[in-house]
């Protein structure tokens, strides 16, 4: 090493060390960037480079030739030179290593579209949960690549839904959704799904919580499910015409594991329901339609009918914490739901006895609640409705809005009975009772402090295999003073009876 002025110059020649010039340009730049280094050049000793090096003020040994690598560093101290050489060694060594990425030959880039991911993986199903305006492109991509698709997204235009379902029908594929939150395929729960045993019943459901109630009760009766295929809430509307229902029925009919097929739906369009019934009659597998509507059987009744067909005894649907003697309550029925179909079913049952039920998803347009969702009489609110979930998670995940409303009902002297649903299973809150039980206890205390009796009735949709633990959840809710039912229909009838008792 030699010093000129205050700088330390270091020049060395590595004999017979060849590195290409482009790589050495990168190495030089890296070394020049080392702290304390003023100038650095690492280059093959070609005539051109020797000129460059002497122009930079370095003295190069006369015998350096084009097959030798020259390392020339000018730095503020010996330490800085040593650091620069260490950096140089690393940089030169890394040339052969592909930059230290650990994957010299580049991995497969992550898929950027559903279509590509299906093409690469060969998966038979894609789950699309992008914002509604973009769902069509991704779902169509899945169909183009040859897979069926579950569209969780809502706010998908109905003409897009029809087109997706027609395209799927042409290609022998299935579109579940849009706005499909529940499916069980080959024992795997997709979205919100209860853990149920495998068995002979195939379900096609245009209703998320309807499917969950149906499959949970079957499980409770000891009967398993082959598959539960979601259809999307609009599938049995006039516009969509049951396109996915037919595709699902055809698939379940061809599935050797399925011995009985059940269609669960919110109130369908009558002509579509009639067509579907006609189509179902052509299949080899018996089909039961559980279509909610005024005067129609409940979901629980639908389950019981299937049990009869399978020769299975109807169990006593479990309840927890129901007092031997019904309390005397005075006031209206207030239903606070997370599940839209459970809310529908409860309104249909309650209306038979109580007459008009106001709601944000009313049975008739004239029963719609005003914007503030307030009314003196009986009302039922679906907190899972699109208008209440914008910008916030579904109430099956985030109980906030519902708990606030429960507190409000407790303080309202017009409230006699609060009816709530609690849904367990995949996708749902990890411990719904953890939040709800204390709120139920507090609500009952609030009413008691005001000299009123507030009855809380809970429809608990779940199975003993659900991750939340059915018995523990039920016990916690019962301990807080709620009457808990596994059948939503039974819970509703009990609540209606309490209210009616009060009115009498």
């Amino acid at each position: 090493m030699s010093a000129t002025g205050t700088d330390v110059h270091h020049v060395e020649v590595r004999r017979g060390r060849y590195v290409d010039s482009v790589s050495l340009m990168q190495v030089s730049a890296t070394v020049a960037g080392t702290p304390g280094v003023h100038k650095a050049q690492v280059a093959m000793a070609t005539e051109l480079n020797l000129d460059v090096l002497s122009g930079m003020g370095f003295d190069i040994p006369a015998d350096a030739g084009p097959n030798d690598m020259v390392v020339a560093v000018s730095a503020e101290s010996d330490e800085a030179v040593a650091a620069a050489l260490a950096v140089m060694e690393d940089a030169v060594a890394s040339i052969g290593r592909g930059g230290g990425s650990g994957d010299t030959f580049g991995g497969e880039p992550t898929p950027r579209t559903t279509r590509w991911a299906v093409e690469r993986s060969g998966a038979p199903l894609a789950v699309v949960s992008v914002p509604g305006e973009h769902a069509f492109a991704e779902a169509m991509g899945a169909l183009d690549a040859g897979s069926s698709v579950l569209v969780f997204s809502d706010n998908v235009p109905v003409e897009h839904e029809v087109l997706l379902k027609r395209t799927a029908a042409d290609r022998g594929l299935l579109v579940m959704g849009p706005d499909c939150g529940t499916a069980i395929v080959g024992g795997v729960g997709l979205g919100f799904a209860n853990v149920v045993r495998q068995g002979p019943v195939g379900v096609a459901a245009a209703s998320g919580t309807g499917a969950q109630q149906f499959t949970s009760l079957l499980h409770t009766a000891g009967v398993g499910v082959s598959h539960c295929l979601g259809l999307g809430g609009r599938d049995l509307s006039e516009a969509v015409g049951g396109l996915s229902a037919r595709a699902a029925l055809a698939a379940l009919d061809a599935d050797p594991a399925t011995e009985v097929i059940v269609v669960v739906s919110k109130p369908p369009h009558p002509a579509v329901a009639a067509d579907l019934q006609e189509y179902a009659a052509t299949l080899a597998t018996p089909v039961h339609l559980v279509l909610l509507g005024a005067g129609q059987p409940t979901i629980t009744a639908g389950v019981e009918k299937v049990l009869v067909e399978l020769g299975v005894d109807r169990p006593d649907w479990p309840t927890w914490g129901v007092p031997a003697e019904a309390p005397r309550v005075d006031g209206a029925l207030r239903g606070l739901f997370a599940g839209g179909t459970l809310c529908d079913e409860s309104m249909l049952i309650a209306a038979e006895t109580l007459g008009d039920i106001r709601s944000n998803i009313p049975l008739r347009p004239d029963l719609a609640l005003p914007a503030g969702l307030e009314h003196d009489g009986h009302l039922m609110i679906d907190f899972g409705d699109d208008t209440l979930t914008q910008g916030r998670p579904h109430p099956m995940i985030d109980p906030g809005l519902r708990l606030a409303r429960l507190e409000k009902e407790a303080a309202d002297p017009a409230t006699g009975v609060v009816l709530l649903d609690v849904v367990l299973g995949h996708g749902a809150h990890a411990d719904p009772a953890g939040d709800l039980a204390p709120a139920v206890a507090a609500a009952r205390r609030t009413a008691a402090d005001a000299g009123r009796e507030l009855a809380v009735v809970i429809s608990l949709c779940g199975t003993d295999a659900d991750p939340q633990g059915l018995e523990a959840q039920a016990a916690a809710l019962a301990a807080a003073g709620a009457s808990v039912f596994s059948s939503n229909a039974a819970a509703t009838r009990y609540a209606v009876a309490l209210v009616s008792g009060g009115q009498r």
Partner: protein
Amino acid sequence: MNTLDLLDGTPSVVGTGVALFSDALRAQGVDVTDVDWTPPPAGTSAALARVLADARRVEANKLAAERMLAAGAELVDVRLASEALDLQPGHFLHAGPPITWERASGPLRGALIGAVLFEGLASGPEEAERKLAAGTFTWEPCHHRGAVGPMAGVVSPSMWVFELTDPSSGRTSWCSLNEGLGKVLRYGAYSEEVVTRLRWMSEVLGPALQSGVRRARDRGAELDMLAIVAQMVQMGDEGHNRNRAGTLMFMRDLLPDILEAGVDPLRLAEVVRFIGGNDHFALNLVMPTCKLITSAAADIPGSTVVTVMARNGTDFGIQVSGTGQQWFTGPAQTPSGMFLGDFGPDDANPDIGDSAITETAGIGGFAMAAAPAIVRFIGGEVGDALTATRLMYQITTTENQRLGVPILDFRGTPTGIDVTKVLGSGVLPQINTGMAGRVAGVGQVGAGLVTPPMECFEGAIQALAAAAPTLG
């Protein structure tokens, strides 16, 4: 695959959107492939849906792919542009979409000035510039005549052009002869040295090549350029920034015919020395080969396949099969890469040239995996080159088995850019390119990577949507 497959056994699932769903599935032991999804550009989702809903799309794109893969390219002649392209005096062709003098970039202006001087239509650069600005001359895109030109792409009547024909369709394409690197017309240089070289090319190079090419043609041995491109891809060329193997093969194949044609040995030596000293000579043969491939896919109603990507130094323009010759443009981007000598990013002009026809046909940046020798020139590692090519499969319709990439187990190059896939994935086509100096007369300043602006694809999807039948 059909619905029954879905019900048969534990499914594997693709997840697009909320990560919670994929997590829940993994917890149940399901094999999940996650999509790295980003929304398409604002304002395009309705048009994208409309185009994806077009019942003609799938078959139209299949047809476009079949035609691209069936296209061939044979070198059938070398002749004057005035004859081949019916180019009249005072009329010029240029790269990219149409452009006025006012909006033209430095290198395009420089090349037009040089072409005016070469044609003897002005006594000096000032007069040439004045006349160009005054509207004395006319110009239009090479693509409007089925031709292509690298960088500024300026073709004047007295220049010589390669003429290539697709035997499957009879379609023809043309490209000028490559001048070499550094201070050359196509990079906007117009000094005496540049014009002198152009004169030599017209007097010596063009006629010599013509005699050899015609002799080969007359004995029924037309040079199969597609076969050369296929070999290039196996020999480390990607056909855009590296054409070294292609240039050597071209010389090897043509030389016997030029010799037999009786070209003067001293002139022949000049020709061979010139071609041998220019590793990019074959680019001007690869480009019309690619133009024949992409033209084969043009004008199919409902097809969303890109048939042209071209830049004039100001605008980047694309054409799409389903919308014919309509240009969709956006501002040309400045490439990033490595610079010659003292030049830096401030010296570079925005992207210019018809050479992105190579990427449009599935090579160039799309075949980056085939050219590991030049990955450092574009600032990457060998692995990056493989990843780059693999990513392009996500935005293309087919794979060209005739152009197999050895390091990808001879997988065919990703071919046929699909507008809907570009918008759906947010992945833009990768283009390898040279960089011209911003100022007229400077010439080449570097080489690197560039992408088209997303605006081109946004414009295209709106036009495709407008041309699609109504839903239902």
